[in-house]
């Protein structure tokens, strides 16, 4: 008898989902955020269609403010795997928009949410695969694996389709689309273990290194973007730190850490008692903010 571990079960489920998407949609696309979850999702897609090619392109919503290392990693991975990479930026908004000028939520709204909706519409994509996990945030815990968005890209948490067994309903009306989350049932720890076990490449920013940072109390902020306002006399200092989750450099805090290998990251994670989004400025407003963003169409 073959006894499957929890990771093997999760892998089997995710591969099944990816294949369903490829089979049931006209124009699926995989949203590639360059983070660890996207890296796992991409590996699962390789597994799902092996030895054939992955039958859909990757789409990266580039806000313009991603860490430079992320962009380099993105291009290198796409070339290595030989997959088509689409990059979309809300150029019209970019000129006058940054989190300090318009506020974090407006900035996200224009450069992430709006850009994503535009890219999906322009590409005519009827399904978008995303790497979100249900354990990330309370409002995600209720989201279906196949999650319908109306014509304006919005999610209605009160009107979701029941989802039973592994039978996914992929039917949509013109204009609607479906977001599909193959990693729904993975936890943060599962993702890290899988990366370790499978030797999946990830952006080096996840590993601790000496990096120049603006140190503000507990917050470590990257000075990569020139528009970051500095206090009088404030200079970046070299701090041993790493990123727990990746986003835009002006809004992603680093954490002090010596974890420069995967086992050390995992050891840190299990002793670490804070959720991964806490160091993201994005979630610092009201409780329930993620749900508001999702209703608006944020992934």
């Amino acid at each position, binding site marked *: 008898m*073959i006894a499957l571990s929890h990771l093997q079960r999760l892998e089997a489920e995710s591969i099944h989902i990816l294949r369903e998407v490829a089979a049931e949609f006209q124009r699926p696309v995989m949203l590639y955020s360059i983070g660890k979850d996207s890296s796992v999702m991409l590996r699962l897609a390789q597994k799902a269609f*092996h030895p054939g090619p992955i039958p859909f392109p990757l789409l990266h919503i580039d806000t313009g403010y991603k860490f430079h290392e992320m962009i380099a990693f993105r291009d290198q991975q796409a070339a290595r795997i030989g997959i088509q990479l689409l990059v979309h930026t809300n150029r019209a908004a970019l000129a006058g928009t940054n989190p300090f000028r318009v506020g974090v939520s407006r900035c996200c709204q224009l450069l992430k949410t709006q850009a994503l909706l535009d890219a999906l519409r322009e590409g005519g994509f009827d399904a978008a695969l995303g790497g979100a996990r249900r354990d990330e945030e309370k409002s995600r815990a209720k989201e279906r694996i196949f999650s319908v968005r109306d014509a304006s890209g919005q999610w209605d948490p009160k009107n979701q389709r029941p989802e*039973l*067994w592994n039978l996914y309903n992929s*039917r949509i009306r013109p204009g609607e689309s479906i977001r599909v989350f193959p990693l729904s049932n993975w*936890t943060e720890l599962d993702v890290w273990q899988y990366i370790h076990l499978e030797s999946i490449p990830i952006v080096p920013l996840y590993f601790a290194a000496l990096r120049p940072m603006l140190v503000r109390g507990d917050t470590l902020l990257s000075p990569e973007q020139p528009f970051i306002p500095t206090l009088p006399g404030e200079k970046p200092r070299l701090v041993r730190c790493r990123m727990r989750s990746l986003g835009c450099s002006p809004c992603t805090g680093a954490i002090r850490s010596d974890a420069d290998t995967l086992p050390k990251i995992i050891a840190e994670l299990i002793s670490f008692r804070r959720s991964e989004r806490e160091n993201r400025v994005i979630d610092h407003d009201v*409780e329930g903010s993620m749900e508001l963003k999702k209703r608006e169409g944020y992934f």
Partner: protein
Amino acid sequence: MFARAAEPFSIESFLAEEQSKDLLRFTTAGSVDDGKSTLIGRLLYDSKAVYEDQIRAVKRASAGELDLALFTDGLRAEREQGITIDVAYRYFATARRKFIIADTPGHEEYTRNMATGASTADLAIILIDARHGVQPQSRRHAFIAALLGIPNIVVAVNKMDLVDYSHAVFLAIEREFRPLHPRAWFVPISAREGDNVVRPSRRMPWFQGPALLEYLETVPLASTGELSGPGFFRFPVQRAIRTNHGFRGYAGQIAAGLVRPGDEVTALPSGRRARVKSIETFDGRLNEAAAPMSVTLTLDRELDISRGDLLTAGDPPQVARSFAARAVWMHADPLTPAKPYLLKHTCQTVSATVSAVRSLEGDTADRLALNDLGVLAIETSRPLYFDPYGRNRATGSAILIDPHTNATIAALMLVGAEGVGQAVPPADRRMTGKTACPTPVTLLERASRFGHGPAAIALRGSAARKLERLLFDRGANVAVLTHWDDAARVLVESAGLLALVTGHSHALPSPGALPADDDAAAAKALAFLLETGIL
């Protein structure tokens, strides 16, 4: 994320230990205020699956002491109404196992939600408030758990602190519930105080069993391979994979059983046979693969196979365009007989109409509305290749979709091509039969007590007598009948009887050819009842 002793921590041994952990999916059911959210919050909190920042947020939101229920109350709309409205999934792990909880709320939409959570669950926890005892809803929860084929049932008698941790109260509830689910495990708890949830309680020395969490950590997980028997293999083809280099394989998730290179498989619908040449994965070829792995199979000869086809070995599946299915109605729009629906089963979607309806609860049913349970006679545009749900969930389940709204409107548990399981095939082979007069005891209550609905199978007399004894000892409401006619049918329906009909009757399902030895024949017939989901 885990409670760890102070001994020096070795990440290598931790990782090795982690890799071997398996996964238990469970669901929780209870009426509003039975303490379900508190129990889940307690499991998450005591097993250290919640983060400090979440604890801070919950502390801020709690009036007075830490309100554990707030760890799981998610959406804004629910927060405003003060109830949970939908299925939510939670994750935690202990040193022994990983867990996925399908948290389903207990208000009036619970049937739909519970069925959803139950569809993927290995275990259900049914909560009972010690003060109120077994409620009609508890019976319904037990029934839905059985209907959805959840292998393990735990009955958690909660709020023991409010009944002075009384053994007598616990025993009375156990006695009353036990007949509804003979294999259930009972545990007295206080979710709020933590007794017997994560740690054994000192306040109930009379309880000998482990705490709930230890039970969850150690309950054996039946694998699909074992359940369905040796040689049994089901592989719905999701997608053909071809490359420019001439590779041709069939991708899918194994729905039952085990496969090895060299095994002979039959492709349906063509009925053509081939041998498995290789089991391909990104990580290399495998010597064997089992449910629920996702793999790609290559065959030793070209068969014309596409998405929705089934590769099978062992007992053949049923192949039918018209069959019976038990249904949970999931949508506010009621069932409309003869309306064209879509039916998704494994990897194929076909059009389907419902030709007849029977409710499990009432006598007549020309409609099925939100949260109703019933038995449907279904006809599809193309044949399905399926197994009775009781034998294999993955090839025995289906959903109905409304082609106009695209809503998922029903969950179906396929029963069989002719055998209508808990329904009795009426003389005219339609299922619209009316029963005698309305009775204060519903069919559902009878089914909950006896562990089966009304049903009749055909069997030779000497074997029927042996089987009658076996079934009676299991608590069934069983009788041997010598003829099958309309009068017998009314009797069976109104008494919720399981009838073993010895007279010649083609209209009834039967276990097929039976061994000459009566004991062996009775055992085989019993297996048939279990497989077809009649029991």
